[in-house]
């Protein structure tokens, strides 16, 4: 059914999956859209760097400095290959995806070829993570531009019927998520990019949920800028990636000022380094970037096509299982081939916090709340949801544990009097 072969062996790569939790329960980790677990090779690569090669990059004129710089820049090459970037110079290391989105939204406020101003419009969508909403609110509030957005259909897709009204000659930026962190929806990025480019707008794509699950080709995506975070792709926290087309990155003014991003500095003014360093002020997250390199090599070794097939198989199995829970409402597309591995659902009569706590006492880790997507929750009339999210190490048996846990949750809260446990 598309599952990765030798799943038991693959799971041994992730030491945390062997953890025993309170009450002797084995960990069932279904919160990978929140953050993924890390394989031993990522942990070892980071430890080895800190133990043997640690030095600052690009500014230390000694052997360790050369080793550290080489490892850091090698990580940039790995990222470039992973996303099929035409040039390594187009790969900027950031702190996370939020910083990448803020980098674009912030620099567009300044004069220049892509500047956003009064009368201009920025188009986002109602399914965005807060990190792809708030930076654009800040930009439009600061510049007097107007923020607009795609609404959603009942089954959790973008309502494209309004595209002619939304994307016009006034549109300067279209920013959208590739895969929704709440609804799981995979958006037609290339189609929207084509429409946006017809009016000369810049297309920004949040690939935070796409990068872990889909084979990425940034050029084929049609986007001008793509951001993602490292910790959801089995890498460490503290590092993210921004890819942008060279001419755009060269046209945008610097974001943060500081060391590394300069060419020369006088007391009056400075000139800036070429990309990528122009956007990497200060000492970068060195060991984190190196860890991310190891993570993306690990994923590439398994193969993103195989990981995507595994996610689809697990997602289909989970959707089948969830459908057996009385009253449950899954938000987003119900066809596994049309969606990513994050599945948010509402279990009427039990608040998501209570669902998450009951599952937690059985060793099952899920997320409960608004998942940083309050507008999308409001759209579907729910304050919060429970979200399970799988990854390459998720097994069908773990989905079975979730479904059993949900049945128990229902009976624990008295929704199923016949089999009530209390």
């Amino acid at each position, binding site marked *: 059914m598309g599952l990765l072969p030798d799943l038991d062996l693959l799971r041994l790569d992730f030491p945390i999956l062997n953890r025993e939790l309170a009450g002797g329960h084995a960990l069932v980790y279904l919160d990978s859209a929140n953050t993924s677990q890390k394989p031993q090779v990522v942990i070892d690569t980071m430890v080895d760097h800190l133990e043997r090669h640690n030095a600052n990059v690009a500014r230390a004129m000694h052997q360790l400095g050369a080793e550290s710089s080489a490892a850091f820049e090698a990580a940039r090459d790995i990222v470039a290959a992973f996303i099929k970037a035409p040039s390594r110079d187009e790969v900027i290391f950031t702190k996370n995806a939020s910083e990448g989105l803020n980098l674009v939204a912030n620099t567009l406020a300044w004069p220049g070829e892509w500047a956003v101003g009064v009368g201009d419009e920025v188009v986002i969508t109602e399914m965005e993570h807060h990190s792809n909403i708030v930076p654009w609110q800040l930009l439009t509030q600061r510049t007097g531009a107007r923020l607009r957005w795609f609404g959603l259909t009942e089954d959790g897709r973008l309502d494209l019927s309004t595209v002619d009204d939304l994307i016009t000659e006034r549109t300067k930026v279209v920013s959208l998520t590739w895969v929704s962190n709440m609804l799981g929806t995979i958006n037609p990025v290339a189609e929207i990019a084509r429409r946006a480019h017809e009016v000369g707008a810049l297309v920004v794509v949040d690939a935070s949920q796409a990068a872990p699950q889909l084979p990425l080709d940034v050029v084929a995506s049609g986007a001008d800028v793509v951001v993602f975070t490292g910790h959801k792709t089995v890498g460490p926290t503290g590092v993210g990636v921004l890819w942008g087309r060279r001419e755009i990155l060269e046209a945008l003014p610097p974001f943060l000022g500081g060391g590394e991003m300069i060419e020369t500095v006088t007391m009056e003014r400075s000139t800036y380094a070429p990309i990528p360093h122009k956007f990497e002020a200060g000492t970068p997250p060195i060991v984190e970037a190196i860890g991310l390199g190891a993570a993306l090599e690990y994923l590439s070794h398994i193969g993103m096509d195989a990981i995507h097939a595994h996610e689809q198989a697990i997602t289909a199995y989970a959707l089948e299982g969830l459908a057996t829970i009385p009253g449950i409402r899954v938000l987003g597309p119900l066809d596994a081939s049309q969606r990513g591995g994050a599945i948010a659902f509402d279990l009427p009569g039990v*608040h998501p*916090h*209570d669902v998450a706590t009951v599952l937690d*006492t059985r060793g099952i880790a899920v997320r409960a709340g608004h998942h940083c997507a309050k507008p999308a929750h409001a759209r579907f009339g729910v*304050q919060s949801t429970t979200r399970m999210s799988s990854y390459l190490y998720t097994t069908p048996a773990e989905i079975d544990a979730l479904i059993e846990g949900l049945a128990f949750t229902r009976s624990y809260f008295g929704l199923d009097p016949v089999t009530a446990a209390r």
Partner: protein
Amino acid sequence: MDLDALYQQIILDHYRSPQHAGLREPFDVEVHHVNPTCGDEVTLRVKLSDDAEPVVRDVSYAALGCSISQAAASVLTELVIGKPVAQALVVQQEFLALMQGRGTVVADEESLGDAVAFAGVAKFPSRVKCALLPWMAWKDATSSAMNGQPAHPNSPKENHHARR
């Protein structure tokens, strides 16, 4: 982790049959508090007496959230309505100490009543804020009603005060 220690029968009873629920007139102050990490919300009104040593005449609320936060709001109203404000604030302090005690504080049933059932919540760090949400809202509203000043100038933007 013992699920039954968290979900004491008393808590589930209050969740299913909340006491003093709904927003009522008259009131002195209304506050709206949210837990930004999870989205739980409570709108809460207080009415104090005009005495020199004011008494809590009424607490009414509309709560949106989990069983713990809903039950906490219900238990709160049972504990504070009819008490002198000074005495109710002592109960609030005791409840706060119980919640922040990580399971080491022994609950005093004499003063905390049904709220002793929340002792188990203190062992679930992610749920302590749920239990405290209505209590923090009540404290905020009460101190506003007492002195006419916004009690929490630093509270999140979404929180609001309205004075009658």
